[in-house]
Structure formats: structure tokens, C-alpha cells
């Protein structure tokens, strides 16, 4: 296996773009990544795309095929990867393998999605054998309610307060306001967050992420090409994909088994552990993390579940400013999902682009000083998770 470089990266900003088809978002991100890399489309040897769920892709999630048709059909192989909200980094993992293995020298990884208004219906099926359908039909628990249950459990376990939660939203929006690609670029005060509508106790409107439209792309290449390039490469230290373990203690559908250990979000923990081991790094080596904050709760839970900080201490890290870009463990210097909203299948690749921007020192006022190593983590429907470590 050989090293793999991110030679170029591009985003279409996150937001709601009712007048643009998803293909336009995907092309904007891809053209930006190619221009950044100094690579021509006709020299791309393969595409790994996040399979779209809600838009384009001929209704079959064939976003990569739409991209190839749009950019110019050159006969190259296309892989459309489906992994819920992990799809973007799942595709990145496949793109990484294709270059690392020597099969291809230049690969584009791309994810783009336009989200429908309102709730994400996880399956949309009305099938009594579908566990997601049963969860809604027999109980009634949309995503925010699920996150609220996990957060309330943490409150009971560690004494997390509503102020602790609001503080994370204030931090997220303070950073999001500085990010030109964010959808929400407005700061909020503690009072504004604590007075926003209660969605599912203890989570309020400004503490959960809405859905957005957006697209992200990167150009991956071999060391030989990276060394000749004018742009500054970011290296892939590791790319890991995982699924949940049998002993996971969170009921994903309507029930789970209570057993020994009962880890939460085991898929994310496994993916991060694999990525860290593969990159031969320890938590203190990591200069910044972009983690999947569908709700502020995850900024507390994830770093503890991965062994980055002691269980029950995350609230203090946030209160002390230790998760800010200038802190001991910068988390989501992009502003996170809180500031972007979630363009589901594209989101995990956006995280990778954000980490790469930091390592290139191009994050402006959000810059983590002297950032050399960054971790991006995603969590997707179906027990999917990814972890990607980048370095310069």
C-alpha cells in the first residue's frame, strides 16, 4: 500500500437552493476540487461517490454517474457508495483504497445532496417487517426524540445541565458565523439558545441541526503526482469504516439487549479506534476533530466514548473553552452540523474537506494554530460509521 494525498478540495456552500438541481451543486464542488488540484477532468481515472438518497442520481442514488455525464463521459469506473449519513466518507474510503492499492493514480471522491423539507423519514417504507416503520408506528420517535433520550440519560448519569448544552450551541454558532460556507452565519447568546423552542426535552431548536443542501469533492492522488503538483497536499494517515457491535446498548429500532459493557455508538468507537491504530496515533496527537454533531449532545458524548477525554468531563472541557480552536482539543472548528445543517450523504465528505482546510492553514479566523493532524468522524443510519485521519 502506498501513501495517498488529497491534492484538491471543493465545496458548494451549504444552504437551501431550491432553484438548483443537485447536479449543479456536485459540479460546483468537483470543479473547485479539480482547479485546486490543478487536475483536468479527463485525467481522472475513477469516481467514488456518496450514493444520494433524496435527490438526483436517476432515483437510484447514482450521483457518481450523473457527475460523469455532466463533467464529460470518459468511460471511467464509478462507485456509488451507500452508508446513510456516513456515505461521503465511505466513498472516501473506497477512493483511498483505489489509490493506495496502486489501481488508480487520480480519483475524485464526491458527495452531493438536496434534502426535502421537514422530517427525514428514515425508511419511508410502510412495511411491518421494517424496524424503522415499527419504531414510528408503534411508538413514534423522530430523530430529535432519539437524540433527546440519549442526552437525558447523560443528564441522569453525569448531571449535565441545560446550560451545558446551550454553551455548545453558542460555541458552534460563534465559529459557524466565521465560515463562509456555512448556512447559518449568526451568533447566538446563551439566553437566545435557552429561550429557543423546546423540541424534545432537553433539546431545544438551536441545539439540533436541520437539513440542508450541499456538495463536497476531493481529488486523491498518488505520492508521485502529489510531489510534482503546485498545490500543497494533505496526506491521508488512515481511513476506517465500521459497523455497530452486537453488545451496543442503544436501541436503534424498538429494542436492544442490555449486556455487559453496552457501549454507545459502538460503530463510531470502532471506526475511530481503527483509524487511530492504523495511523499509529494517540488522542493527544490529534490537533482537531470534526465530529458528527446532529445535536450538541454528541460533542459531549463522542470524545468520551472514544477515550479522548475522561467520561463525565466533557461539560468542563466546553466551559473552559478547551474545545475552541485555541483550546486543548478543538472540536468542530467549522461550526459543525449546527451551523451547516445536514446534507446527509454529502456530510461526511464535507467534514474531511473542513479538516483538510485546517491542515492547510486556510481556515481564517477559525484556524486551529499549527494544526498538523485532524480527525473526521461520521455516523450513519444502519450502524455505519467512518473515521478519517489526515496529516500534513
Amino acid at each position, binding site marked *: 500500500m502506498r501513501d495517498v494525498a488529497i491534492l484538491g478540495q471543493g465545496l458548494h456552500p451549504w444552504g437551501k437552493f431550491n432553484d438548483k438541481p443537485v447536479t449543479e451543486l456536485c459540479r460546483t464542488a468537483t470543479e473547485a476540487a479539480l482547479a485546486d488540484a490543478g487536475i483536468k477532468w479527463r485525467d481522472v481515472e475513477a469516481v467514488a461517490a456518496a450514493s444520494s438518497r433524496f435527490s438526483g442520481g436517476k432515483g437510484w442514488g447514482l450521483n457518481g454517474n450523473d457527475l460523469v455525464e455532466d463533467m464529460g463521459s470518459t468511460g471511467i469506473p464509478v462507485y456509488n457508495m451507500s452508508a446513510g449519513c456516513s456515505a461521503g466518507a465511505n466513498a472516501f474510503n473506497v477512493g483511498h483504497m483505489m489509490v493506495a492499492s496502486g489501481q488508480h493514480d487520480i480519483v475524485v471522491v464526491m458527495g452531493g445532496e438536496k434534502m426535502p423539507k421537514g422530517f427525514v423519514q428514515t425508511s419511508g417504507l410502510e412495511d*411491518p417487517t421494517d424496524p424503522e416503520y415499527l419504531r414510528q*408506528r408503534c411508538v*413514534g420517535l*423522530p430523530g430529535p426524540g432519539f437524540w433527546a*433520550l440519549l442526552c437525558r*440519560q447523560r443528564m441522569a448519569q453525569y448531571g449535565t445541565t441545560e446550560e451545558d448544552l446551550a454553551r455548545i450551541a453558542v460555541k458552534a454558532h460563534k465559529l459557524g458565523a466565521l465560515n463562509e460556507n456555512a448556512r447559518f452565519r449568526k451568533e447566538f447568546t446563551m439566553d437566545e439558545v435557552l429561550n429557543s423552542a423546546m423540541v424534545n426535552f432537553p433539546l431545544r431548536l438551536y441545539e439540533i441541526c436541520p437539513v440542508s443542501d450541499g456538495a463536497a469533492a476531493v481529488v486523491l492522488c498518488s505520492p508521485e503526482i502529489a510531489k510534482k503538483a503546485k498545490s500543497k497536499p494533505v496526506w491521508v494517515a488512515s481511513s476506517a469504516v465500521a459497523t455497530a457491535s*452486537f453488545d451496543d446498548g442503544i436501541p436503534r429500532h424498538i429494542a436492544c*439487549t442490555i449486556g455487559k459493557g453496552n457501549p454507545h455508538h459502538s460503530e463510531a468507537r470502532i471506526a475511530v479506534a481503527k483509524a487511530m491504530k492504523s495511523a499509529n496515533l494517540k488522542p493527544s496527537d490529534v490537533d482537531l476533530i470534526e465530529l458528527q454533531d446532529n445535536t450538541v449532545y454528541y460533542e459531549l458524548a463522542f470524545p468520551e466514548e472514544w477515550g479522548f477525554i475522561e467520561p463525565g468531563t466533557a461539560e468542563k472541557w466546553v466551559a473552559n473553552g478547551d474545545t475552541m480552536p485555541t483550546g486543548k482539543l478543538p472540536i468542530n472548528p467549522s461550526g459543525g452540523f449546527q451551523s451547516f445543517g445536514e446534507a446527509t450523504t454529502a456530510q461526511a465528505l464535507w467534514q474531511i474537506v473542513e479538516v483538510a482546510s485546517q491542515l492547510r492553514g486556510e481556515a481564517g479566523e477559525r484556524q486551529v494554530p499549527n494544526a498538523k493532524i485532524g480527525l473526521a468522524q461520521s455516523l450513519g443510519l444502519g450502524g455505519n460509521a467512518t473515521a478519517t485521519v489526515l496529516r500534513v
Partner: protein
Amino acid sequence: MSTETIESAEGLFADTKNGPRLLGSRCVTCDTPYFPRSAGCHNPNCDLSKVEDAEFGPKGKIWSLSIQNYPPPPPVVIVDPFEPFAVGMVDLVEGLRVLGRIVSDTPDKINVGDEVELVLAPLGVDATGAEVISWQFRPI
């Protein structure tokens, strides 16, 4: 007005002679409980993967709970006009963590760790006008 009462899903619960029970499975080899019924055992360390029918409930403890403050879209069954309802994850003594609504007039007073029992109670009225019964949990 509803004219018919139906179960939220078939074969998931029953009002037995001992009271309301959830209908699931248990692995005969490793004892892992499953709800709903499972065709096999999902424990990767269990080689036999043979399950038999099992009933679960009624005793459990609240692992977590929240209030659903806004009306979710179908297929969630709600009352008209909408009233917020409590939802919980309940740890049954049989070793299952189960989702279910919490039946209470004062959900703000329920805490994590409180004891509950399984009940069969209406969720509301669905799109066909039928009253839908499902498993729920009531504080003891």
C-alpha cells in the same frame, strides 16, 4: 369518531392471562432476548443460533425519557388535537431495553430510574380513523 380498534402492529404484544406481555424470542443457547421476534440469534459468539418464542414484561425501569412536543408526521399515531406525549427507553428485568410511550398525566415528574409496568393503551387515531393500541409503560 373512531369506530374500530386495531393493534399498532400484529404479533408484537398480547394481553395474556398473566397480563400484557411483549412477544419476542430468546436464544436457547446464549439466552439473548429479542424483541420483536427474531428468526435467529444475532450474537456473533453464539454458534447454534436457535431461538424460541418468549414473553417479556411487565416490570422495568426508565433508562431515559423525553417529551414529544410537536406532532410527528405519519406513520406516527397521535391524538387530534395533538397533545405532547412522553417517550422512554425502558430496561425490562428480562434484559431488554425497549422503546415505548410513557402513560402519565405528569410526565415532568418522572425520572430516570423510576419503576414502570407494561400496559396496552391507545396511541391515538391513524389515517384510516382507527384507534391504535400499542405497548406503553406506566409508572408504578
